[in-house]
Each structure stands twice: as C-alpha cells, then as structure tokens.
C-alpha cells in the first residue's frame, strides 16, 4: 500500500472550442456542421488545432497522504479543469491517474440544494449527493446545523433564506463531509469576513486530521497559511511545483505581470464576462508612461481598459490592491463618489478607460498586487482577476526615509504632526 493519495501522469484535457462556452448544439447545427466538416475534409484541412484547445497539457504530480497542496494560476490556467478531472466529473483526454480514497469536492458549495425543500431536507439531500451515508448525516446533523447558524429556520424552505444563510448551510454540509481527499475551489471568495475566517479554520482542522487537501485559491495569504507545497499552473501546464513560499513568489512575479501592463487574452476571459470584455490593466506614472516601478512621493494612476459589447446598467469597475502577503490594502470602485454614481448609472456599448489616481505619499515602499473587478452590485460579477498585475513602489524621498529602517504597514502617509511643549513644573 503506497502512501500516495493522488498520482497523475501526463494528464491532458482537450475541449472543442465552443463546446465549453456555447449552448449545446441543436440538431440543425449538427447537420450544418456535418456539411462543413465534410467540406473541410475535401479540402484536406487539419481540424484539430483550429477547433480544439488544450485546457490541460501534460500535467503530472503526486500528492502524499495528509499533504495540503495549493494550486494557483490565473483565470483560464486550467485549475478548475484539473479539479474536475480529479473529482471524476470529466475524463482526461490523455494520461493516467490514480486516486486512493474518497474525493470530496467543494467545487461549488450548495450543489444539489433544492429551493423548495427545507434546510433539514436539504442537509440530507446535499449530504447524499456529496457522498455521505444517511447514518453519517444523521450523526452529524446537529453539528452541521450549529455550524451553519440557521437553527431557527431549519424547517423553512431554503428559497426563503438570505444568500448568507444559504451559503452557510451549504458550506456546513460540505465541511462535515469526511473524505480522505478534500478538493476546495475558491469557497472563500464568498461570504462575509467572519464566515470566511470560520471556513479557513475548518480547513485547517481538516488538514490537521491528516487528510489530504487540494486547495485552489487566489488568496495568497490563505495559500501561505494552509499549504506546504504549491503548484503553479499557466495555460494548462505546470510551471512550477515546490514549497509554497517560493511558488507564491514565483507566481506573483510571473513574466506577464511584471511589465506594468497586463493584457488579457481571450482564453483568460470566462464566457460569463460578456458583454464586459477586459483589455488591459496598466500602471501609469504622472506623465502617462506605463511603468513597473512608481515613486511613493509622486503618485501614479491605475488604468483599466475594456470594451462593452452591450450597454450595462449599474456597472462598476474596481481595483483591489494587496500586499504580497495577501492582505488587502484597499478596494476602490470608479462609482464610489456620489456624483460619479449619478452620472454613470448605465454605460452604453463602447471602448472605455477607468482610471484611478493614487495620491502621492500614500503607498509604502514594497511590492503590491493589483486585482480588477467588474460587477453590478448584487446582480452580477462580470469579471474578476485578483492577481492581474504587480508593481513596485520606490520609497526614495518618502517621509521618514532619513532613517533607513524598513517601515511596517502597507501605507506610508505624509501626516502632519505637532509637537508642543507644556511646562507642568510651575503653577498648580
């Protein structure tokens, strides 16, 4: 009996273009494309490269039992495809793999919840779908309810739940699954901060119980905290597999992101982004040049360039700035100011730039990560890339630089101080 939980060799997955993104064919399309294909065959065209893309290409790795493995990569790097293959939802097109133990996936919490059923009924249903036995669910039922904090509404149909309650219940069921191998994909992107903390705590517990965990996240601080080894995926291939701190460092400094400009390729834009089409993210110095390094004392701009193929109402484009440890420095949206919000209630189709000026004497020196988000509040998230670009802030001339010690904190504001001397030795 080997101690490997997962072993994959040369796994590849090929999708037909269109298969992944478009509505399934109707009979008419098949007939039409049948004609087309026979036409192509007559002309002797190779159909493969033009009509297929490799979502994963020749991926090999091993995971020891009890290991917590991180997987990072940009949108479209193949992370979800890899997890789908490992959880057997889809077959690889090539390659071979072995899995020892039951795989529980948190690919999407709440899968199989039925809105008409009550919380209690959904716990049983969802548990069964995730592969739990009835006796197992019954045993853990109270624990699940307690974790979810929805005791009072346990006999209410979940369609009456708030989205927060729904999510908590869904995660609670999934978290009490006890598979030997747990696959977690971005569950932490949802829910409020408190709940996220709770989820992270639960994941830490799972890891400590000696179970194998595959953890996919854009949250570098969570990856750093929970995993020992991390795989960096890009365009379907493994770029690096190694100890987490160096893998995270490698990922954050990956080629593309270093130029002060990030251009999105079509394969990185999920179909759900339409009609929002991101083009580029740039760091601009005060003269408008694209730069990788900005001076703390100068201020700079961050520019998002995008196309709207249709009018969107309520669209807001935002930036996240993170430290390389994954802590958020700030979040800002282009409609934050009331008058901007009033003036841009809807944006007609067209070519846009949303530009944000970051003031001088604000950022501390160091390396930062910029993420982008385009969404309509509470309606739809069109696009999100939490690691779009990194840039460096140079602290030369910043307040306090006459002491060459590193300053803690992500910001280094130029603040006013007053010093007053009050003589308390006389009088009173």
């Amino acid at each position: 009996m080997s101690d490997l939980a997962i072993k994959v060799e040369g796994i590849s997955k090929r999708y037909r273009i269109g298969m992944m993104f478009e509505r399934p064919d109707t009979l008419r399309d098949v007939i039409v494309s049948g004609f087309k294909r026979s036409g192509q065959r007559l002309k002797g065209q190779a159909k493969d490269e033009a009509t297929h893309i490799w979502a994963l290409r020749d991926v090999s790795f091993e995971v020891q039992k009890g290991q917590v493995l991180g997987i990072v990569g940009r949108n479209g790097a193949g992370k979800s495809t890899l997890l789908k293959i490992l959880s057997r939802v889809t077959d690889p097109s090539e390659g071979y793999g072995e899995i020892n133990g039951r795989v529980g996936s948190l690919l999407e919490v709440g899968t199989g919840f039925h809105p008409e059923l009550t919380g209690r009924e959904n716990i049983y249903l969802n548990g069964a779908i995730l592969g739990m036995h009835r006796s197992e669910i019954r045993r853990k039922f109270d624990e699940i309810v307690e974790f979810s904090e929805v005791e009072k509404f346990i006999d209410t149909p979940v369609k009456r739940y708030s989205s927060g309650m729904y999510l908590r219940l869904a995660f609670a069921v999934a978290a009490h699954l006890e598979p030997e191998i747990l696959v977690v994909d971005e569950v932490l992107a949802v829910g409020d901060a408190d709940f996220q903390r709770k989820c992270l705590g639960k994941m830490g517990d799972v890891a400590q119980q000696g179970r194998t965990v595959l953890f996919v996240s854009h949250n570098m601080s969570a990856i750093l905290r929970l995993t020992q080894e991390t795989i960096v995926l890009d365009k379907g291939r493994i770029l690096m597999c190694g100890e987490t701190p160096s893998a995270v460092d490698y990922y954050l400094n990956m080629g593309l992101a270093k130029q002060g400009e990030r251009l999105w390729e079509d394969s990185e834009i999920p179909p759900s982004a339409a009609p929002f089409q991101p083009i580029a993210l740039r760091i601009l110095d005060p003269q408008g040049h694209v730069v990788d390094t900005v001076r703390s004392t100068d201020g700079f701009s961050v520019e998002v360039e995008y196309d709207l193929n249709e009018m969107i109402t309520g669209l807001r484009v935002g930036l996240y700035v993170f430290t390389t440890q994954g802590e958020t420095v700030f979040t800002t949206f282009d409609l934050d100011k009331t008058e901007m919000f009033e003036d841009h209630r809807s944006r007609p189709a067209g070519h846009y730039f949303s530009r944000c000026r970051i003031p001088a004497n604000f950022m501390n020196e160091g390396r930062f990560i910029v993420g982008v988000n385009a969404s309509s509040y509470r309606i739809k998230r069109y696009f999100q890339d939490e690691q779009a670009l990194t840039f460096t802030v140079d602290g030369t001339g910043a307040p306090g630089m006459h002491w060459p010690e590193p300053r803690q904190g992500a910001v280094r504001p130029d603040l006013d101080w007053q010093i007053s001397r009050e003589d308390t030795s006389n009088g009173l």
Partner: protein
Amino acid sequence: MQGQNSYPKVILKPSKGWLGINLPEIWRYRELIYFLTWRDIKVRYKQAVLGIAWAVLQPVLTMAITSVVFGYLLKVSSGDVPYPVFVMAALLPWHLFSTSLQKSSQSLVGNAHLLTKIYFPRLIIPVSSVLAVMLDFAISFLVLIATMMIYKTYPTWNIFWLIPLTFLAVLAALAVGLWLSALNVQYRDVQHMVPFIIQIWMYASPVVYSIDIIPAGIFRTLYGLNPMVGVVQGFRWALFGGSAPDLTLLISTLVVLILFISGLYYFRRMEKTFADIV
C-alpha cells in the same frame, strides 16, 4: 467512517468506446438513488394547495374526460366491461409509462448542475426520476380498485400478473428514457419532440380502444412491436380477463429488452461527455 477502507482505488484515464455497466458502483450509490427519488416526490407537490391529492385527481379526471369523449360520445366498444373501468385499466400503465418517459428524458438536463460538479454513476439520474413516478402509480392503482368496486367488477387471481407487467412498463419507459435523456444532453430538440412522441404513442396503443379492433393474426402480433401494446393488453386481461396475452406480449417484451440494453450502452458511451456538453 463507513466505507473508508472499502473505497477502491480510482483510476483516471481516457475512456473509450463502449463501457460495461458497473453494478457494484451503482449499489454503493444506492442511497443517492433513494434521496433523488425522495427529492423528486417531495418537490412535485410542494406549494400545491391540494398536494398529494393531485395523484388521485389526475387519473380520475382523465378517466372522466376519456369516458365522456370515447365511451359516451364516440361509443367506442369496451366489451363486457364498463367503459370507465376499461379505460382506467389502460390509463394506469399508460400514465406510468408516459410520465416516466417524460421525466427521465428531461432528467439529465434538469440536473445539469449536478453533472458538472460532482461525480456519481450518471445512470442514477434517469433511474431515480422513473422511480419517483411509482408513488403516483401506487395511488392511482388504489383509485382503480375503488372504481372497479363501484362498477362491481371484481379482479381474479390474475391480478398478480400486474407485478411483472408494471415492471415491463417501467422498463420500457426507462429504455426509451435512457436514449432520449442522453440525446437531450446534446440535442435539445429532444425536449420539444417528447410531448409529440407521447401523444402519438398513446393513440398507437390500445388505451382508449380495445385491442380487439385489430384483426387477430399476424397484424396483431406485429402490433406488439409497440411495447405498450403488450403492457396495456396484459393489464386489461389481468384485471378482467378477455383476450389473453399471447405472442404480442412476447414481442413487446423482446422489444423492451432490446431497447433497454441498447439504451444502456448508448448512455454509457455518451456518459463521459455529459459534464462537458450539458
């Protein structure tokens, strides 16, 4: 934890061609069959004022309408048996078949969110959608017995033949359902075709009329190529006698078996692509 040590090693590799049926695996997932069936039953009559009473009302109303149109207005012959009882005996397996067919053909697409997220033997979905229809069948069966009492028509020991006949009807629905559900994943045209298929199929089966209007002999035997002919005729015979099932039923059974086995294999062949194209 249960099953922890018994969980076999899973091999990931490209699957090619025709696959066998993995019965041990389906057995391991038996609780999921139970829960999906239970879900379908629970959800069907939720937020309906009359709730499960619909399972009684539907066969009674259909019987009433059919009796008025075909029995009273068109004077379709029903032999010695009162027309309402005669038609209900056929509507029972027919509804079981048509509802199962309808539900199972939609089942994969209706559960797309499960197919794309979680692994389990895909056969479970059409199977549980058919099982969920059995409850309604059981209720309408009680309604039929009550109706027979009202019309003073009493069943004989032959009634036990209904068990294999019901099984045949379910198998027929599942057989066609396997084909249609797998096709529907790729071609949504199927969901538009199913209502027509069901309507035409009903008139092609001796539901509102008696099989006796088809001349006995080679024609009636060939009529058995429609599997519901054997089932419906068998139901009438088991409940009140009359033309006994003969070669027709045998042919119907063979057709069901051929459809079922080919459907299973087609389903298994297409199964691996469901998550990618649904």
